[in-house]
């Protein structure tokens, strides 16, 4: 009996060993990419006056409120010439607020309505309130897929960008939580990973190019001494991690990684 089972055991062990090795390799590649990505210096090749595409994640409720305050106070819209707002499906309020905000910008600039300068995109939620944790991974994947489409400019809610934008990728991705923001930043990093690999594979790796899909995470103003869950996940991933309270400044995921930056109360 035992001798009959022996080959099966061997096979099972081999499969286990192989998956272990592949898993280890994948984790290694991810870790190395994160280190390289966070420590990369950007080539200064973007010419002043060229249009900039900003993607803003409106998380819902308090996240949206903080983000709108940031948008109101911190940006010069003659520089950030095109805005894509991403809201969670069902969050009509955030979508409405994005449109209202765009109307105020248009009024300030003397235009009646400038619908050509922005889009509002709706993507599925990563996890609905009270959703089971069993189905959450699937909805998170669904959300991630939608994020990829948005960043590639292929989401059905998007219209083609005006001709002066050379790339479908947004230049800056601004987020401040919750789970959908994590999905968006992960999606951006995934696309950048493949772009990076392709560039090196085609021998253009060292040629300076305009950097796009740069991810910025602003920790909530309500976080004084402890990072939020989204914040902790994004600490080794986001390109720029801004905190609004001094005690959170200088945090980093591990040795050699980028530190969080204190930016003051940008929501006020």
């Amino acid at each position: 009996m035992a001798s009959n089972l022996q080959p099966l055991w061997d096979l099972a062990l081999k499969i286990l060993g192989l998956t272990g090795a592949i898993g280890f390799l994948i984790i290694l590649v991810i870790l190395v990419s994160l280190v390289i990505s966070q420590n990369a210096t950007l080539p200064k090749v973007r010419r002043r006056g060229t249009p900039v595409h900003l993607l803003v994640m409106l998380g819902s409720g308090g996240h949206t409120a903080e983000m709108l305050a940031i948008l109101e106070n911190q940006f010069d819209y003659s520089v950030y010439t095109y805005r894509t707002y991403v809201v969670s499906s069902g969050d009509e309020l955030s979508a409405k607020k994005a449109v209202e905000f765009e109307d105020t910008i248009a009024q300030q600039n003397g235009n009646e309505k400038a619908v050509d300068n922005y889009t509002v995109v709706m993507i599925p939620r990563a996890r609905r309130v009270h959703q089971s944790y069993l189905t959450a991974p699937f909805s998170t994947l669904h959300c991630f897929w939608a994020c990829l489409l948005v960043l590639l400019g292929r989401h059905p809610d998007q219209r083609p960008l005006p001709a002066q934008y050379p790339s479908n990728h947004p230049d800056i991705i601004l987020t401040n939580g919750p789970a959908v923001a994590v999905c968006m930043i992960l999606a951006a990093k995934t696309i950048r990973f493949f772009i990076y690999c392709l560039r090196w594979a085609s021998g253009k790796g060292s040629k300076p190019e305009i950097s796009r899909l740069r991810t910025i995470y602003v920790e909530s103003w309500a976080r004084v001494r402890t990072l939020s869950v989204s914040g902790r996940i994004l600490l080794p991933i986001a390109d720029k991690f801004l905190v609004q309270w001094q005690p959170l400044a200088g945090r980093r995921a591990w040795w050699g990684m980028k530190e969080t930056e204190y930016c003051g109360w940008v929501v006020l």
Partner: protein
Amino acid sequence: MVQKLCLVTVGATAPFEKLIQAVLHESFIAELEKHDFTRLLIQYGKGGQPIFDAYRAEYENGKIVHDIQIGGFDLRPNMTSCLCMVREDPSIGQELGMMISHAGTGSILDALRAGLPLVIVPNPDLANNHQQELAEFLAEAGYAIVGKLDDIPSVVGQAAQRGDQAPLFRRDNGDRSIMTMSDELSWVD
């Protein structure tokens, strides 16, 4: 007639009956009268209506007597008009009042932007440690007072003293922060 308002907010997400009870207590109302307040406006939120209605019924029956005009509502999507009523405006005979908040970020930011004397009362029934932390840091920096549920009346005097000082927060006074992102755009020098 000069008006002076105390605004109380409990937010939309969680009920905070203890705070509503505390601000409708006679000792708190007496303290308001002592500091020349004329009005008390309560955003009582979820589950707060029965307490407020019971109080109003007692008042209308003449069981409670005081000069404070009391109003209440469940929730408003936009609190701007309420916040404006707390601000100082001599042209319509309005003195600087105060705001008591349930430690919700939105209401705290609103109060800071409007430059109102602010009392933060964290809800002890919510295991929300970072709100407590935020309240303590703001108190330390002098932007707010942290109130305890069992001693709400004392905050009126404290807030009134605060109100005499310089405005609490000013965007255009060097307190405003600027977010730098140009390094992410990496312009040509």
